[in-house]
């Protein structure tokens, strides 16, 4: 099966500071892939490069076989990749419903995710649809952010640290939505610091350390020790 | 091994310094060979250069874009006129009053304008200039809306004019022009030298830091507010002095002329933009280009101004560092170097 998303030797950074040193990964259609790693390992940089927020060479990222590296974010969205950014980044001037609607601005295809469908996924949002988005609790804001990304009916959903700053019970609530998202047909890449949660939902896992992939495989095939070593590096 | 030192001087800078000294010496002697028209042209160039250097200090180094410096030109000129007409001072001495008046105006101006940022700061400076113009136009003793001239007694008896007339064998009017020219030369040299010296102090370094990243600068203890005040007041004072000097030479003033946006802001901005913002060499180059354009094309009126505006826009869009920026990038030349470098001893790398 041809991968939906493929990166080859992906190198990216911030000005003179390089954060990624040649990342090779692949995501198959409909798959859920988890990317784990410590703070500063480059996980968010990786998602940003894929989403078009950070520049990279055209051939380093391929989506459905086409080189898309370096294209601006708005072009990437229209091809079918949507991002739930780190820290949610909801629009303070927009209500909950307006935030969801703006997600549909980049809608490029028909698909299961309409406003109603998103409210079905996260019923609490329907009650708070007219509130300013930033007035909601952290967990609810995360739901809005995810719903907003879904509204463009992406083939690939990138989720950057959706559990950040949330209580465990809230995290579980949010991850409960993941199977329904998979049913919709989207492939999902989740970047997580919560390893347990990541291993539970992922078909495959990549571990990043200091800008390089140190481990990859299906969760079942990876031992605790291997993950530990890949996450933190070999003991000095 | 020698301890590392921070140095600023470069070889090109040293050569340029010597060349500048030679130029100034030549400039001083010029009236003995040059005609009155040349002296007047040079006066114009030197005073515009002064205005440009101060605007550049504000905007290019300080990040404060003002489109209201004409307020200080005007108030400086009017204060000088007031000193002559109302207090009976010698016009040359009254130039200092111009600087003082500008300083006095600058304090409340800065206080109001600093409440705003960016483009709104810019327009606020314009409003202040307008308010000053309108207020001054109410000053009946100095001609109100139509303006006035320096009384003949004052200009005839001006300091040194008689001596200069004798020295060069010229009549009073030409001697006045020579005096004005020398003062303008002194002012331009003092301005350029003074700004350069300022930038080499730690205030200059702090200024660059604030311009690049205010928050980061503040986090290392730079008092951004105090710096802005310092730069604004210095620029106001200098602009006021220049304004007073300009009108000593013109000897006739009116609110619309003294507070003209075109003459004292548009031309100045053009000079700095064309020459190169944020460098000391820039305004020097810019004023030379401007002087040539002015000499060749000023007669074309609106077309000329349109062309200037267009050149300014295109330069800002496609060569934002101006002519000097292009030259400097090509050759790596810095005639007034302000960059600090770490000099680690005898094995300093070659070149600039």
């Amino acid at each position, binding site marked *: 099966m041809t991968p939906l998303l493929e990166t080859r030797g992906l190198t990216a950074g911030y000005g003179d500071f390089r954060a990624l040193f040649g990342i090779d990964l692949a995501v198959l259609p409909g798959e859920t892939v988890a990317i784990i790693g410590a703070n500063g390992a480059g996980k968010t940089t990786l998602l940003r490069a894929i*989403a*078009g*927020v950070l520049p990279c060479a055209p051939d380093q990222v391929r989506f459905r076989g086409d080189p898309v590296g370096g294209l*601006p*974010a*708005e072009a990437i*969205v229209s091809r079918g990749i949507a*991002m739930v*950014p780190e820290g949610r*980044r909801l*629009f*303070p*001037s*927009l209500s909950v419903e*307006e935030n969801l*609607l*703006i997600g549909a*601005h*980049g809608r490029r295809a028909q698909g299961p995710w309409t406003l109603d469908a998103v409210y079905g996924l996260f019923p609490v949002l329907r009650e708070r649809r007219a509130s300013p988005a930033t007035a909601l609790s952290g967990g609810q804001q995360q739901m809005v952010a995810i719903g*907003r990304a879904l509204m*463009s009916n992406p083939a690939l959903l990138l989720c950057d640290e959706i559990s950040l700053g949330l209580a465990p019970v809230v995290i579980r609530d949010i991850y409960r939505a993941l199977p329904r998202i998979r049913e919709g047909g989207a492939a999902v890449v989740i970047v997580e610091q919560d390893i347990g949660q990541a291993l539970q939902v992922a078909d495959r896992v990549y571990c990043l350390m200091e800008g390089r992939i140190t481990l990859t495989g299906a969760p079942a095939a990876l031992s605790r020790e291997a993950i530990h070593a890949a996450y933190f590096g070999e003991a000095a | 091994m020698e301890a590392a030192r921070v140095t600023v001087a470069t070889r090109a800078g040293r050569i340029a310094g010597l060349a500048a000294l030679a130029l100034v010496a030549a400039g001083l002697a010029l009236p003995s060979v040059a005609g009155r028209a040349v002296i007047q042209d040079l006066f114009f160039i030197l005073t515009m250069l002064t205005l440009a250097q101060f605007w550049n200090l504000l*905007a290019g180094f300080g*990040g404060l*874009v003002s*489109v209201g410096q004409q307020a200080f030109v005007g108030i400086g000129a009017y204060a000088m006129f007031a000193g002559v007409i109302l207090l009976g001072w010698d016009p040359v001495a009254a130039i200092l009053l111009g600087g003082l008046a500008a300083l006095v105006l600058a304090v409340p101006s800065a206080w*109001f304008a600093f*409440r*705003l940022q*960016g*483009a*709104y700061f*810019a*327009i*606020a400076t*314009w*409003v202040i200039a*307008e*308010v000053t113009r*309108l*207020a001054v*136009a*109410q000053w009946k003793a100095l001609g109100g809306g139509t303006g006035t001239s320096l009384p003949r007694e004052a200009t005839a008896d001006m300091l040194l004019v008689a001596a200069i007339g004798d020295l060069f064998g010229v009549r009073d009017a030409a001697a006045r022009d020579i005096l004005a020219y020398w003062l303008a030369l002194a002012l331009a040299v003092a301005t350029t030298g003074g700004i350069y010296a300022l930038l080499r102090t730690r205030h200059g370094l702090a200024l660059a830091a604030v311009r690049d990243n205010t928050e980061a600068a503040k986090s290392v203890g730079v008092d951004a507010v105090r710096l802005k005040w310092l730069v604004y007041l210095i620029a106001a004072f200098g602009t006021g002095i220049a304004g007073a000097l300009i009108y000593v030479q013109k000897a006739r003033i009116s609110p619309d002329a003294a507070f003209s*946006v*075109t003459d004292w802001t*548009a031309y100045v*901005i053009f000079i700095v*933009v064309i020459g190169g*913002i944020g460098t000391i060499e820039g305004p020097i180059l810019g004023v030379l280009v401007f002087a040539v354009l002015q000499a060749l094309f000023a007669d074309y009126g*609106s*077309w000329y*101004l*349109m062309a*200037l*505006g*267009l050149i*300014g*826009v295109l330069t*800002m*869009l496609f060569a*934002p560092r101006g002519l000097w920026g292009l030259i400097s990038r090509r050759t790596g030349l810095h005639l007034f170097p302000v960059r600090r470098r770490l000099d680690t001893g005898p094995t300093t790398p070659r070149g600039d």
Partner: protein
Amino acid sequence: MIWLDTLVQGVLLGGLYALFAAGLSLVFGIMRLVNLAHGDLIVAAAFLILVLVTWLGLNPFLAALVAAPVMFAAGWVLQRHVLNRTLGPDILPPLLVTFGLSVVLQNAMLQGFSADSRRIPAGALETASLDLGPVSVGVLPLLTFASAVVVIVVLNHVFYRTALGRAFRATSDDLTTARLMGIRPAGVFATATGLAMVVVTIAALYLGMRANFDPSIGPARLIYAFEAVIIGGLGSLWGTLAGGIIIGVAQTAGAAVNPEWQILAGHLAFLIVLLLRPRGLFPRAFD
């Protein structure tokens, strides 16, 4: 009754200033850009309307209707191909480029139309007045004020009830995330400026019918517009109307005391507000 009359005149004048300011407010709110050529664009639009009136014999309102899409297109192109290039972290380029534009525009108009004062002929409208009991008001100022209100209502509608307005607000909040939603900033900014130019056209219509204009009066209009925006508070169109009214009332009150003090009075009112409330009277919560 002089004071009531002065007050009413001032309020209605405020409508004109609010029209000057609304376009400025719109563009600044969305892309943090202040166009120093804004006033000159108003004057240019006035000349355009004048040309349509004199060459095609159109009634001024009709001429404005024809001029509006032309100005929209001009603004769209200007933003898309010139001003978009200046947007970024550095404050110098947009200021200096728009200043240069102002110089170019003023002199182009001087060249094309000479420095003569013009007026857009409004026929009976120029002197018609309405008797409202204690005061009588000119129909034209009343119409101007009413138009300002309508423009603000329409702009607010666009901002808060349309997809375009959503895009405007999102772009203003967070450009990077807006692009992640598929919003193309180049087009959004161009549309915003185009829209502002339509408002500018309406402002020009009333400016030209009300009083004489010539190529050099642009900067003063920019200053009034800017003062109204600052007094009102950035981000609030109704605040801009309030700001315009305050300037208008200050000016007419000043003129009533001494005609030479009219403009100065307006500036002083602005400085006083700036003194007491640097963020304006109705600032938006987040900026």
